[in-house]
């Protein structure tokens, strides 16, 4: 399911490119369950600002997170044109609110450049690599790193 598999299969990785907070990102397609329009959510008390609330996804209650907010890129202005990308992180399912989703990219893993920025605390960054596509650069997002602590904090 993860990197090992994909690298074994001729180093081709498929990404979905999306934009949030004015920046271009891409997420491995294997972690994406579906893409849907924004619909009203039910707010959760005592939640982080980036957690917009919970949504009913065919009977499952999934939290919806503003990706831009989570990344510290400000708050996404919510409108009917926003897109929710439903992702699976480990056993958890959640929705990410993004500005738009553009395309599916098949890229050779060798074209991904490492993220040269270093974190002062030595921790792993949630941007694991940079992917140049035509004249733009997409940030390869590691969702499990981004949401590593989610779910434990409130417990």
């Amino acid at each position, binding site marked *: 399911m993860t990197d090992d598999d994909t690298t074994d299969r001729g180093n081709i990785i498929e990404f979905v490119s999306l934009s949030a907070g004015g920046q271009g990102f891409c997420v491995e397609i294997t972690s994406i369950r579906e893409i849907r329009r924004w619909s009203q959510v*039910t707010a959760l*008390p005592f939640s982080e600002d980036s957690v917009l609330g919970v949504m009913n996804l065919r*009977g499952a*209650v999934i939290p919806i997170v503003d990706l831009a907010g989570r990344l510290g890129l400000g708050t996404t202005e919510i409108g009917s044109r926003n897109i929710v990308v439903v992702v699976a992180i480990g056993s*958890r399912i*959640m929705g990410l609110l993004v500005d738009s989703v553009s395309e599916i990219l098949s890229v050779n893993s060798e074209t991904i450049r490492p993220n040269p920025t270093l974190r002062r605390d030595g921790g792993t960054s949630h941007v694991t690599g940079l992917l140049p596509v035509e004249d733009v650069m997409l940030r390869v997002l590691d969702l499990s790193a981004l949401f590593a602590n989610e779910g434990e904090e*409130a417990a």
Partner: protein
Amino acid sequence: MSNDSLRETFFAECEELVEHLTEGLDALASGEWDSETIHAIFRAVHSIKGASGAFGYSDLVTFTHAYETVLDLIRSDALDITPEILRLITRASDALAVLVDTTRQEGAASLDPVRDLIAELDSTAKAVSADAPPEPDFVFAPVTLLPIEVPGDADDTPAGADAAADAGLVISFKPLASFYVNGHEPQRFLGALAELGDLSVRCDSQSVPPLDAFDFDGAYLTWHLRLLGVADADAVNDIFAFAAGLCDLEIRPVGAGEDLTDWSVAPPAAEPDTPADTLPGPDISPAVTPSPNVSAAPVPAASPAPATEKSPPAPRGANKAANPIQTTLRVDPERVDRLINSVGELIINHAVISQKLESCGVGNDSEIMAALDDYRYLAREIQEGVMSIRAQPVKTLFQRMGRVVREAADATGKPVNFISEGETTEIDKTILERLADPLTHMLRNSVDHGLESAEKRRAAGKPELGKVRLTAAHRSGNVVIEVADDGAGLDRERILAKALDKGLVLPDAKLTEAEIDNLLFAPGFSTADSITNLSGRGVGMDVVKTTIASLGGKVGISSVHGQGSTFTISLPLTLAVLDGMVIGVGEETMVLPLASVVETVRPNRSDIHEIGSGERVLSVRGAYVPVVDLAKTFGMHSAGSLKRDRSYVLLDAGGASIAVAVDSIQDQRQVVIKSLEGNYGAVNGIAAATILGDGKIALIIDSEALVELVSPRRKNRPLIELEA
């Protein structure tokens, strides 16, 4: 089906059988039983024995055999159910459950712990057969169930005149079509018989039709067997136990003067016109034919003889009785979860359709609306049905716990009265399964540490018989399970001393009673001065606490010196249904668990009193109840300001009352609980979520947590810790 999954099925069945066994024994103990109860008990043990043999679990076979022998004597009225016997067979049932469990986990079980028990069972059985004169008449009295065989029996009994050195059995074995459908192989059975003694086999193929009339799925062959050197038909019956109901089996002793060459010809002659597949006929013909031979049956066969005649009805009884006994269906829980979700969607879908129709101007009295009502009714019914699959009563678990307590009582020599209540309380199956270990531990603790010895109890003026009570109940959206004993209560001084000793607390720490009690849950804490077999291995309550916490639950202790301790486990019902009151809070809709709602009030302005800044109390019939503004507590926008007339819901939770100010009260209904923890995490003050008719999510409020949230002084822990 792989061997592994077969084995899984075997153990699952064993569990069910042990359950039947326990139920039967409980009935015996309560005195409400009849012969069918005894039969059911016997069958349960017998079936375990049969199946264990098939899987090569010889230890289980050995044990069940000894057990079964005693049960068989009871079944045939040769042994009275005295309290001693009842205790013996109850202990055996407990031991059997443990053996099955060990075998499941470790692939084999040692008989060492039960050697004494086996010896006891054996000697009980021997004592009976020694002093009981051959009483065939009484023994096979139940046989009269089968009128056809009565004449045969009647002939039998006076028969056994002369002794026969060459005891033997003549067996007619005619598999039915279902025998083959179930994957049985006649050769296996013949092989097993050959191990018992000298076996001659003749196959009767007379009934095989010409090829054009041949049904490939049909059963045409009859085996005529003669087994020399075996007088005990039970051994043969055991071999055929698996094929009970799947074949026609006739066993009779070899007649003394019987012509050994011609022995098998007579019965088949009657067969060609009785196609075995459908008719029970074959039973009759051999039964009649052998009777002249039987008249010469040998004396020692007197006891086998009744057994022989009795055995055919046994499987038959088994078939008949199998119906009233509750059988279960094993389904992958994920399939049920999918169903639950789909049904939830169905109900929401109904709401959507009905809203759309209304907006099209379809009147409520139109036919389509009436049909839609039926739709809703059916959907609700399906929903209830599906939900009830996932939830299971705690009964099975409690029965198992009864065994644990009995074992613990035996091991410690303390007389214990185990009381279980609320056995019909339903919990999600997953939770139920994972509760077994912590509960076992807690109950052992209660017996081992909680209850005093009989002498001490007497000295304290208590009845010698200690009480351990296990209860389950639904309380404000949780399942609450309590383990209570009427022992000495927690010895706080000793706990504190031990904790100091182990460096769990600082010497100058001032601890409240509750804090001392909670030290029990500290890792590595064990108060037992001597390590007993039962508990006190140092992995104690902390493991219990961790397990319960991993199920999203909490454990608490309350203890009164000299009167006992109560451990309370409170668990969420992840997939259960909750009776809720649907309320409007600001722009959101929320659900209050109806269990904690006392009443709703619309008070006069003068009933609300401000205290200091922002704090308010509501006076209800002379009592002052703190007011909680839900919208404010949960940081939501309130649609109406405080000036507007609002409704108040009085909640009673965790021993305290609060008045919850809400913007509207919309409905009372059953809601499906959807856990937030799987995808998000626990939220303070919120128990779970549910999906409303319009597809929107409403949060279900945790009344007890809400009480704690708004009056943190009531809690030992500071509020910050909760959110950290």
